[in-house]
Structure formats: structure tokens, C-alpha cells
């Protein structure tokens, strides 16, 4: 039973329709959560006793960082699925992730830089986590560059899938870098098991932002995926039905 569901997911027209139906379910809650989190985080939560007001950028920085890594993992997994089982839709998903992931990574680096100035006195530091996050950005860019270097979409898909899978090694490195090395970054305070070390007025908006960003990614991914599927299947007959409907 589970396999028929899996096989249906591999069908471009089905995915196209599914993505269209799911987008509003992701987009609206995302908007709501992000607006709430922005308000609660920027206006309502109390100032941090060590860092003052400047710390508030963490409400954008930490979720962006989480997303940059999560999107890469999604990209790598769908690339692997496409590579092993030769499912074209999986490759379309991976392709749709790339720009989104790169944007989140860039946002992480920028928000981190803005936070760095008041906190550590510098806009940039070659701290392990920062360095590996930058490496993540390079991996996204390398993935996109590799894709565009092949005219045949199938070849581009499969070659960049290998790269995506090879680069996934970077993901645990980013997470563990703060534990393995002396780092300016604090040890994980949100992404760890057990009681969180933040007060609820900070913790709840933070979680809301995490969830909001995740849903936002979902909505954006589905939108891009539909465009990607349309492009790849442009000569197929089901496209004409969709366009004429």
C-alpha cells in the first residue's frame, strides 16, 4: 500500500496538482507564525540581560541557519532518491531547493554578521561554524554552477545529485563544529534534547519562527517545484490540459 503512494509521488502531473493544493496550507500559517514571531520577538520579549537589544537578530539568524541546513539535507535526500531509483520528480525537487537554500544560507551569514558587530566587535570572524556555513554557501553555488554546465537536463540532474550527496558531509560538521572546536558560537541551546536554556518569552517566539520558516520553505518549494515540473514536462500532453483548464 505504501508503495503505491510512493509511486504516485513520482508522477509529474500528480505532484503538480498536489503542490498546488498544499501551497496555501503552508503559506498562510507561515505568514501568521512569522508575523507573530516578529512581533513577539522584536517588541514583546524582554531584553537579554547580557546582550541588550541587539540580541534580537537571533530570531532571524537561528531559524535561517536551521533552514540553510535543513534545505540542504532535503536537497541531498531527494537527489539521492532520484539517483538511486531514477525518479525524475525527485531531481526536480532537488533543483527547486538550491536557490532557496542558498538564500537562507546567505541570510544566515548576513544576520550573523549584523549580530557579530555588537556582540563580538566584528562583522566577520573565522570561527568554525561561520566557516563551515560559508562552505555550505559555496556548496550551494557549486551545485547550481554544475547544473548549468550541462545542456542535457538528465545529465545535469544526475551529476549534481552526486555532488549534493557528497556535500552532505558538511551538515553534521556544521552542527558539531561548536562542540569539537573552541568557538565564538554558544553550544546548542535550542537544538538539543532536554530542557531549553532560554526563558519562555524568548523560546516561544523562537519556536514559532522556526516553524514559520519551515512552512515558508514548504510553500516556496511547492511553488518552485510546479514551475520546475512545468518546464521539464513542457512537451507532455497533460500540460496542455492544465494550461487549457
Amino acid at each position, binding site marked *: 500500500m505504501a508503495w503505491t503512494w510512493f509511486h504516485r509521488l513520482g508522477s509529474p502531473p500528480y505532484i503538480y496538482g498536489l503542490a498546488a493544493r498544499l501551497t496555501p496550507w503552508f503559506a498562510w500559517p507561515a505568514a501568521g507564525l512569522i508575523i507573530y514571531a516578529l512581533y513577539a520577538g522584536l517588541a514583546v520579549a524582554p531584553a537579554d540581560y547580557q546582550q541588550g537589544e541587539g540580541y534580537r537578530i537571533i530570531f532571524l539568524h537561528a531559524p535561517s541557519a536551521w533552514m540553510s541546513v535543513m534545505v540542504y539535507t532535503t536537497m541531498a535526500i531527494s537527489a539521492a532518491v532520484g539517483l538511486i531509483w*531514477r525518479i525524475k520528480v525527485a531531481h526536480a525537487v532537488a533543483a527547486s531547493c538550491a536557490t532557496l537554500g542558498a538564500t537562507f544560507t546567505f541570510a544566515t551569514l548576513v544576520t550573523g554578521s549584523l549580530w557579530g558587530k555588537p556582540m563580538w566587535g566584528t562583522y566577520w570572524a573565522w570561527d568554525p561554524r561561520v566557516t563551515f556555513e560559508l562552505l555550505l554557501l559555496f556548496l550551494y553555488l557549486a551545485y547550481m554552477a554544475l547544473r548549468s554546465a550541462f545542456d*542535457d*537536463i*538528465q545529465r545535469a540532474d544526475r551529476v549534481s545529485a552526486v555532488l549534493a550527496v557528497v556535500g552532505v558531509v558538511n551538515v553534521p560538521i556544521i552542527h558539531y563544529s561548536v562542540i569539537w572546536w573552541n568557538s565564538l558560537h554558544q553550544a546548542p541551546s535550542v537544538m538539543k534534547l532536554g530542557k531549553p536554556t532560554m526563558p519562555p518569552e524568548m523560546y516561544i517566539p523562537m519556536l514559532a519562527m522556526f516553524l514559520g520558516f519551515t512552512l515558508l520553505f514548504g510553500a516556496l518549494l511547492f511553488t518552485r517545484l510546479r514551475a520546475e515540473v512545468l518546464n521539464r514536462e*513542457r*512537451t507532455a500532453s497533460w500540460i496542455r490540459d492544465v494550461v487549457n483548464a
Partner: protein
Amino acid sequence: MSKLILRGESLHLWRGERHVLRGVSLELRSGDILQLTGSNGAGKTTLLRILSGLIYPEEGRVLWSGTNIREDLRAYHAQLSYVGHEPPLKSDLTARENLRYWVGVRRRLGAADIDAALDEVGADEWRDRAARTLSAGQKRRVALAGLKLIGAPLWLLDEPTTNLDIAGQTLISRMIEQHATNGGLVLAAVHHELPVQARPVGRLDLAAA
């Protein structure tokens, strides 16, 4: 020399938007010679590459002696020789060295074996010159020597008569005939008829598909 049968079942392939192979099926048995014909772009090379396992067909499958080649691709490869458009030679190596490194990776060869094979293709004077100094016809002859040396039962050949003079054409037709008589299988993509006379040659035309 039991059940050597190559079977391709309903092979489909798309290249981007082009439906290059539309449900091609074929069967080749021990002793058969089949020539693939069709205009440029009809998919002859693509079909050969699918049969060799290099390309994965989007639909259909390839069977060797009843088993899907995908189940043990390396074992299948050990049973075939695929020679493409261009003879696979390194320009900086001599004919002898090329054969040693090309065939030697597959089966143990002595210098005597290599020399014997080169003798057969008429490489008396030029066997120790760098391949880049050889003419296209000479390179093709080295490729034929390699084909013989590899000794695999299934031969997949892409335009095997290219660049060969009359003597060369006789050479390859003799080789193909001998191979088939000994129970081998030959599948060749061609633009002109294979110059084989001593045995029946089947035909599969791709343009018609």
C-alpha cells in the same frame, strides 16, 4: 557455449524531448550476425549503448542468457566487447602498449598474444609507433586486434568498417564470419551493408520503428 542469447525487450529512450527509441525489441543467438541500420540520429549508437549497459532505458529491459543485465552488470561486461565510433587508443602509446593496457585489464596477455593479433591485422611495420602517428585505418585495425584478443562472445560494434580499405573490409568480414561460426554473437550498427558473405546477416532498421 550454452544459452548465449541477447534479448532486448521493448526498449524506450527519450533524449530530452525526443523519443529516440520507440519500443525496440530484438533477439540475438549464438552464431547470429545482426546489422542495425537507420539514418543519422535514428538511435543506432544509443541502442548499442543501451545493450552494453552504459545507458539505462526508460522502459524495457535487456536480457543476457535469460537474466536481466542489471542484476550483474560486471559479469555481463566480461562477456562483451563494445567498440564505438572511435578506436579506444591513447595517442601517446604504441599499438602494442595500447593493446596491453586495454585488453590486459580484462584478461591475462603475453607479449606473444599481442604480436600474433597485430600480425593478423597486418601491423608489421607500425606496431611500435605512437598511435597518434597512425592513420585512421591503422587505428581501426588495432581496435580489431583488440576485439579478437578480448575474446568475448558478444560483439557490439559501431560502424566497424569506417576508414578501412578493401583489404581491411575483407579482414573484418572474415573476423565476423569466424566469430559467428565459433558461436559468437555480432551486432553492428552500419551505414552500408556489412561485407559479410559466408553467413546470413539479419537486419534491424531503426528508422522504421
